[in-house]
């Protein structure tokens, strides 16, 4: 018995919709799938996630996207990390790098030696031991090396790109591979009598589209997952109080930084994402602490260059859908959950939903029209874990602050955080130990960056780090610093590198102004 092709209907054509369409079309053999994407050119897309994480490169590789071509089409720049400004105290700055600080010495993680040296009087910053940070501060870039013995292998990179151009690029990619796009609005949803799953959607042109699997990429409202299936949503606003954003592009000025910046503000934080043709900016804030008008005014007064549009408002609630896969509907992107883009996780969470779904499908679903509930549950557990781990990490940014100059910081500094995070912070404060896990985002260097960057300073380090002779330790630390510094200064500037690698055409009519 050959399995029937799986009829997949994707509702919504933003970043999530087109990433899903492109991946499914690239990965599933043509005779095994029939993919339809329904989007309305009348409904704007949120165009979330202009900054990405290194994981996107796995996604690109898996579906066969050519990196320089993608970058040229999306006005992309390289990203080595995120600079956080004013988070623990006004005036502070640190970079969360896509890479490690030094490397283990005598089996003990590097940062314990850094702490010990600091205790013995060294004033070198932890940043001096990270190549992506030093390169970022110098606005330089080079591709990493595969040679594990080279300091050039100690970092990864991601992209900063125009999300609407990304969706457009993926649309071309998906349509070439047989995805059928329909420009229409959905006016009605029919549920199946048997199990309450979605039978079909009715379009404003009168067409009725049925399918085996519906992917809800309709954004915050969750047209299928929530409006039709009433799945429910777990809110996390008590830990992540921001519920609105204002976004505005502006002209570039100054050197193109190979990193994103997130600056803590009076009622939230401001993003700054440099692209080849313009700068993306936004203010993520809590409506409890500032009005929309004031947020817009503050944002406009804090741009690097001339604004290129009016500020665009967004509303959201931090949290996750109770089940992102419910019956035959899988919610991907904002329909599945929302975590503010503080650590550029939006596209990662889309990507992980897509690749996990692809991993779990058996191909028998087309023949039976059913999804094995054992697979659905396993999928939901996995996605939940991903969201929860990102959540804890984001909360840390808000909670680990000494700021008392604004209500939002007073609230976050003193709020009760999840036990899992409390435990992690306590263990770090006590002995610099990072609680790590095998799956999910944010490994040891990420936690170290935020802890150290936000003044969560341990009172002690791993006693095993005391075994090394002091002079030997100093010698090794110095050697790492020198290697990082000399390697960084040999890199070309970010702009030079872009000009060679992936020059974008000047913005056309297609690019969002």
């Amino acid at each position, binding site marked *: 018995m050959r399995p029937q092709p799986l009829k997949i209907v994707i509702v919504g054509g933003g970043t999530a919709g087109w990433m899903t369409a492109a991946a499914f079309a690239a990965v599933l053999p043509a005779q095994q799938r029939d993919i339809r994407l329904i989007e309305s050119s009348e409904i704007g897309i949120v165009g979330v996630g202009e900054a990405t994480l290194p994981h996107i490169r796995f996604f690109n590789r898996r579906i066969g996207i050519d990196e320089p071509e993608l970058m040229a089409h999306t006005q992309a720049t390289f990203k080595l990390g995120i600079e956080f400004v004013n988070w623990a105290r006004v005036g502070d700055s640190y970079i969360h790098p896509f890479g490690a600080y030094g490397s283990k010495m005598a089996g003990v993680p590097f940062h314990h030696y850094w702490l010990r040296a600091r205790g013995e009087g060294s004033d070198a910053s932890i940043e001096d031991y990270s190549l992506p940070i030093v390169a970022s501060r110098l606005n330089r870039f080079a591709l990493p090396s595969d040679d594990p013995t080279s300091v050039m292998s100690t970092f990864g990179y991601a992209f900063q790109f125009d999300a609407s151009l990304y969706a457009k690029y993926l649309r071309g990619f998906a349509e070439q591979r047989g995805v059928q796009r329909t420009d229409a609005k959905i006016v009605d949803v029919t549920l199946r009598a048997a199990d309450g799953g979605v039978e079909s959607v009715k379009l404003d042109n009168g067409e009725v589209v049925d399918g085996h699997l519906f992917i809800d990429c309709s954004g915050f409202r969750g047209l299928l997952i929530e409006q039709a299936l009433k799945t429910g949503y777990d809110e996390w606003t008590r830990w992540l109080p921001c519920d609105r954003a204002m976004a505005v592009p502006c002209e570039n000025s100054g050197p193109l930084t190979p990193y994103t910046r997130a600056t803590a503000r009076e009622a939230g934080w401001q993003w700054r994402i440099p692209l080849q043709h313009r700068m993306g900016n936004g203010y993520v804030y809590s409506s409890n602490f500032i009005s929309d008008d004031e947020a817009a005014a503050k944002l406009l007064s804090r741009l690097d260059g001339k604004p290129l549009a009016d500020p665009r408002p967004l509303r959201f609630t931090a949290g996750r859908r109770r089940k992102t896969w419910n019956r035959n509907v899988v919610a991907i992107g904002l329909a599945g959950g929302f975590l503010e883009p503080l650590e550029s996780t939006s596209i990662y969470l889309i990507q992980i939903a897509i690749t996990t779904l692809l991993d779990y499908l*058996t191909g028998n679903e087309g023949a039976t029209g059913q999804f*094995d509930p*054992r697979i659905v*549950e*396993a999928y939901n557990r996995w996605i939940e874990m991903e969201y929860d781990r990102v959540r804890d990490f984001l909360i840390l940014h808000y909670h680990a602050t000494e700021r008392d100059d604004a209500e939002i910081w007073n609230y976050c500094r003193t709020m009760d955080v999840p036990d899992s995070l409390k435990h992690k912070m306590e*263990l770090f404060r*006590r002995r610099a*130990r990072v609680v790590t896990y095998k799956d999910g985002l944010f490994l040891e260097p990420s936690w170290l960056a935020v802890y150290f960057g936000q003044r969560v300073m341990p009172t002690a380090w791993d006693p*095993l780090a005391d075994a090394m002779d002091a002079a030997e330790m100093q010698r090794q630390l110095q050697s790492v610093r020198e290697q990082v510094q000399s390697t960084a200064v040999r890199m070309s500037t970010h702009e030079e590198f872009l000009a060679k690698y992936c020059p974008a055409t000047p913005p056309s009519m297609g690019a969002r102004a």
Partner: protein
Amino acid sequence: MTATVTRVVVVGGGAVAWIAAAGLRRAFRKRGVDVLVVDTGMPADAPVARWTLPSQRAMHGLLGIPEPELLRRTGATFKLATEHVGWQGEGSHFFHAHGDIGTDLAGTPFYKFLVQQALNGQPESPENYSLAAVAARLGRFARPMGDEKALTSSFTYGFHLDEAAYVSSLAAHAAQLGVRRVTAPLVAVSRLPGGEVESLQLANGESVAGELFLDCSGAESLLMKQLGEEERDDWSAWLPCDRMISARAPAIPQLPPFTRTVAADAGWCWRLPLARTSAAGYVYSSAFASDDTALRHLQSAVPGLEAPGRVVLLASGRRRRFWEKNCIALGAAAMQLEPLAGAELHFAQLGLGTLIELFPLDVSGAIEGAEFNRVMAEHADSLRDFTIAHYRVGRARPGDFWTAARAAPPPQRLADRLDLYQASGRINLHDFETFEEVDWAWLLLGAGVIPAALELQIRARVENVTPQQVAPLRAHIDGLAASMPRHSEYVQRSNA
């Protein structure tokens, strides 16, 4: 309380005690940490011999014990696999080898190909594609070698150890590292106002003070029980065996390089080879066999069996908190689990490694304790699940005991794992797993569990592979296995 930890007191006298003492001493000698073992003798639950996981090799490395010398001293033999006989009914048997199944096919684990073959109605044993399993069947052994992609390094090995010889060898090594020892039963403990243990009172009148105390005394948990009522997770609903007997037996001709377990009416028997002798045991449920019946069964299964020691009581389960105040339970004092997976010393090693990483900076150690308890609970539950899975996979062996072993619904995380495999052939692992994807594949395929379907993308990669295409791999493995020395000769040479 902020006194630095400089004196560690280890209670116990078996393998776990000496491993822990030697390991801590070696890790913190430079820091001036003094380690004293209060030798309370061999734990009552110690078997006459045991089989270990390959991680014991790393343990020996960590302690600085040269393996050839250890083998010479203790008459140990090598272990490439465990053979499970009769678990899916009379006539059923499969190997769980310490090695790869085949080689990756376009980045896909080879066992997926075997699943696809089974779905096509052509099931085949993973053993044919494993150098370790084929060598085990032929009674041959050599240490892995060559670069990491070579078939000759596609496996690893554990050990069969004579318990008394192994323990005295570990004790001698610990002494060389400067571990001190006092031999006397523990009578009482003195505690500080905060509840931490301050010193131990011994039967010889001595009082032994310390900042950190380890209970490595086995299931009796001589130290922890002084601290009061323990909160425990009881696993007996899933693991009904509550008794163990073991005894020495005559050497097994040709020294098979693997452990064998044989399903029986009230549990399972085991047999392992040692250089000059062998050992056997029966792990059983007292609800289904009396001690006499069990002994008679073992005697009839193993001709020439020596008189066993006393019956060991087994209360399957674990402590909720392994680290309380300044006392830490390791090994069977922390978790009692039947030895099916051979992971007892591995579990002790996990505890030791976690303790070294979280070695308390001072006597308080509350946050370290919380982290230790979190991590070790995960490890313990993972080992529990793998052990329970043996009773629940594949065709059920007939018999009341075997029905009872499957009666209770499995622990949720195990149910989730087995469900996902059965639905899609997918094996998801989480943090803190001792057994890897390939180990689960050995167990599931060995027991004949064929999923309803295979992941679509995986299937696309393996469905066009034909048995003819993988035939050369089989031939290569057969050739390599045949070229290895006989295990008996290899051991003889090692002991020479």
